[in-house]
């Protein structure tokens, strides 16, 4: 519990209406998409970098932890106040400060919702590609802190690739700028890239400068159904091998298709064992050519069916298959552990086979879908917590899945991060020397360990 004089000081910094301590408020800032729950002692909504800085200085002198939070839509518990302290919500800082159409950059505050930003730049004919599944509600600050990905990353890269500069409040309360607004810049360490994906452990992001692209003229969407997982996987490498980089290459395995079909009857042929949702974007003429070429390339690979959207409405209908995956998974089992391993894209069929074997071994349903184009597979371990022992078995299965990804030259997490959820497994991927180097950075910037303590690495 925080002493009431500290609460009073917090109120003096951000205004009484921006500090909440009622139990109802604490409950509502104690969760995220992980289904873990830890209640904070107070919820603080600062309105500026200066206020954030003052709160952090107070935290250092008074010794209470601070947990930065955007929309609270993370999958690994990055924003959860484990052990108590204050949740620092960035959503009041939600202005798009400028969109510079000459230099193709934009400056925003961290609380701006991803999609709102995308729509704002698209109105000006510009493009911000990173598209995490949560883009309608996630915040850009959270996207940067977690280095969010999405389907379009196969062609355009992840959030980090669009961050040019930041304004950050360091854990000790200093406000600094990193990077800048020029594409080139080699003076000093690249703190911008260090902060992208630092999960709120190294600083609180208060401004972001993004790089923008010209908005592609058009896009073309295709749904291709294959009679085997290998066919779909070979399609991915064949397309890219032929120098076409689609905007998205979304993949769904047989188990996923069965779930969707059972619940929504979309008419996916029974012989379909894997689906690729392919999208290309660019100049109208170019994408027509690319779409035709892709159809040629995939035809000999055990293609069952290829649907090509003629317009936006038809494209949306094709995307429906993908969007209905989440709601249909509940029919398998009520709780899912949503992991997001990555392997080199040529190893996707290998990793799927290994996961199938793990599912058999532990007798737990596992469904796989995700971003095949960059080898990022969402592995959903479906469990029923009310069946005794199933949760423990799931953790065993997850450990083996991570090991499989690592064996194939991949990583445990492409998008979701470590937070609390993946902490028990971090030693599988990182050597003690790597962890030591990372912890040295953390210790240097946050000597009192007040900013998002206990995340990424366990508390010492």
């Amino acid at each position, binding site marked *: 519990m925080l002493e009431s004089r500290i609460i009073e000081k917090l109120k003096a910094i951000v205004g009484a209406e921006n500090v909440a301590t009622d139990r109802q408020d604490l*409950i509502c800032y104690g969760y995220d998409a992980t289904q873990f729950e830890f209640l904070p002692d107070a919820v603080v909504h600062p309105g500026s970098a200066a206020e954030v800085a003052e709160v952090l200085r107070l935290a250092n002198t008074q010794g209470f932890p601070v947990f930065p939070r955007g929309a*609270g839509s993370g999958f690994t518990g990055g924003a959860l106040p484990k052990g108590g302290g204050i949740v620092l919500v960035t959503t009041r800082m939600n202005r798009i400060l400028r969109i510079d159409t000459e230099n193709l950059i934009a400056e925003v505050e961290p609380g701006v919702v991803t999609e709102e930003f995308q729509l704002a730049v698209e109105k000006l004919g510009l493009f911000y590609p990173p598209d995490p599944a949560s883009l309608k509600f996630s915040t850009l600050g959270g996207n940067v802190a977690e280095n969010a990905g999405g389907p379009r990353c196969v062609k355009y890269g992840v959030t980090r690739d669009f961050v040019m500069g930041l304004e950050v409040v360091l854990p000790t309360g200093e406000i600094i700028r990193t990077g800048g607004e020029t594409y080139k810049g080699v003076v000093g360490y690249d703190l911008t890239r260090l902060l992208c994906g630092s999960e709120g452990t190294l600083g609180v992001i208060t401004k972001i400068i993004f790089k923008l692209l010209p908005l592609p003229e058009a896009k073309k969407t295709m749904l291709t159904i294959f009679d085997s997982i290998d066919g779909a996987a070979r399609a991915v490498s064949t397309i890219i091998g032929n120098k076409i980089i689609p905007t998205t290459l979304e993949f769904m395995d047989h188990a996923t298709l069965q779930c969707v079909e059972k619940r929504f009857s979309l008419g996916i042929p029974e012989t379909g064992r894997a689906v690729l949702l392919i999208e290309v974007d660019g100049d109208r003429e170019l994408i027509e050519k690319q779409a035709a070429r892709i159809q040629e390339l995939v035809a000999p690979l055990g293609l069952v069916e290829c649907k090509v959207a003629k317009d936006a409405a038809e494209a949306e209908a094709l995307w429906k298959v993908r969007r209905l995956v989440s709601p249909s998974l509940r029919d398998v089992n009520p709780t899912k552990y949503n992991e997001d391993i990555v392997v080199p894209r040529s190893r996707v069929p290998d990793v799927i086979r290994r996961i199938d074997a793990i599912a058999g071994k532990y007798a737990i349903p596992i469904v796989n879908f995700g971003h095949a184009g960059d080898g990022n597979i969402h592995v959903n371990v479906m469990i029923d917590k009310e069946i005794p022992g199933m949760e423990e078995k799931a953790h065993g299965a997850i450990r083996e899945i991570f090991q499989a990804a690592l064996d194939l030259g991949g990583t445990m997490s492409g998008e979701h991060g470590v937070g609390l959820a993946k902490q028990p497994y971090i030693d599988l991927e990182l050597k003690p020397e790597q962890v030591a180097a990372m912890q040295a950075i953390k210790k240097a910037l946050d000597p009192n360990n007040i900013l998002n303590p206990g995340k990424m690495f366990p508390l010492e």
Partner: protein
Amino acid sequence: MDPLKRVEQELKKCVKCGACRAHCPAFQELRREPAVARGKVALAQHLMKGDISLDDQTYLAMSKCLLCGSCVEKCPNDVPTDEIVIAAREALAAQRGLTTFHRAVGRVIRNRRLMNMGAAMAALLGPLFFRKVPRTSGLRLRFPLPFIGGKRHIPQLAKKPFMDRHPEVIEGEPGKPRIVYFVGCMTNFVYTEIGEAALALFRHLGCTVIIPKEQQCCGLPGMSGGDLATVRELAEKNLAALEKFEADYIVTACATCGGALHKLYPLVVGKRHPELKARLDALAAKNIDAAVLLQKLGLHPEETGAGEQLAVTYHDPCHLRTRAVTRQPRELLRETPGVEFLEMEGADKCCGLGGTFNVYHYDTSLAINAPKAAAIEKSGASVVATGCPGCMMQLADGLHHRGAKTRVMHTLEILARRLR
């Protein structure tokens, strides 16, 4: 039975992903988690654990819901937050007693005679009508409002309720559909022109129109306050009134009444009173929105709606949008001679009324409406059409606050212009 017990399984479905943050109109304005669906689900879960009580803070959080169903429509896990909030409000009402306002709501909506007296209706609607009615509308009343205190402007009630003007059965052509018209209070007592338009259009198509005299308020205002006893009583009376007549369709021209009949009756009343479930399901299956039925029966708006040149935009009532009625009214309006249809930005966004939400959170309600009013004005339309008298009232208020001249009409009024 503890009302929350009924939704225990439903509560487990929520994974707190946060998708509701993108769709909840109350959250979009208030920007704090207790206002959003997953926050309310979390609070309901903690209520069940006994970790928090049905106190003022819980009451306040649960009151911040418009029951618009937007979060339910978009929830990837099908969490019925509307049902959960109703259960929580039922629990709150059971423990704390109904609020004075909702006790009055229950008293009035259970009592047709009282409603017909007009004054009671006006008093009840007073807070909902808290708005400065333009002087040009002429007939303004001032009413002392016992539950709110002070004097507020309220708009004119119809001199004679719609249902008193027409016989119970208006025979149409043989072989044509027989429809039962569930009128709803707002149409019966305030916007009678909606009822007249509906009647004229269905008669034009040769339908037999039945307006059962015994029909009551749908009960949604009661549901919104957690007064499930009143809702059950009204649902039963409505069942009896509507079942008395053989009909092909049970038509509503009020999105909210339709929402009660087709969704909330089976979901909320049916679950609590299994003996009524089959009858409520049958009623729900027969319910259809007037615009959808008119299109289905092949209405030609050029025969019924042609008139002076109007630039019209359309607002989607939540209780039509969430039952997939968005295309039909637009198509009918586009086909109407004299109508230039202009789509507005954010037509699918909630108007902010939320029934009695508007009474307790008037400022928030208006703030939710502000971008809507701006979008209507920006569309360049001279008329905003919609399919819900509740929305009509709220849109008129929002436009008035903005000083906009845009008129608010029900879609059916435009479609029936030539029939008047």
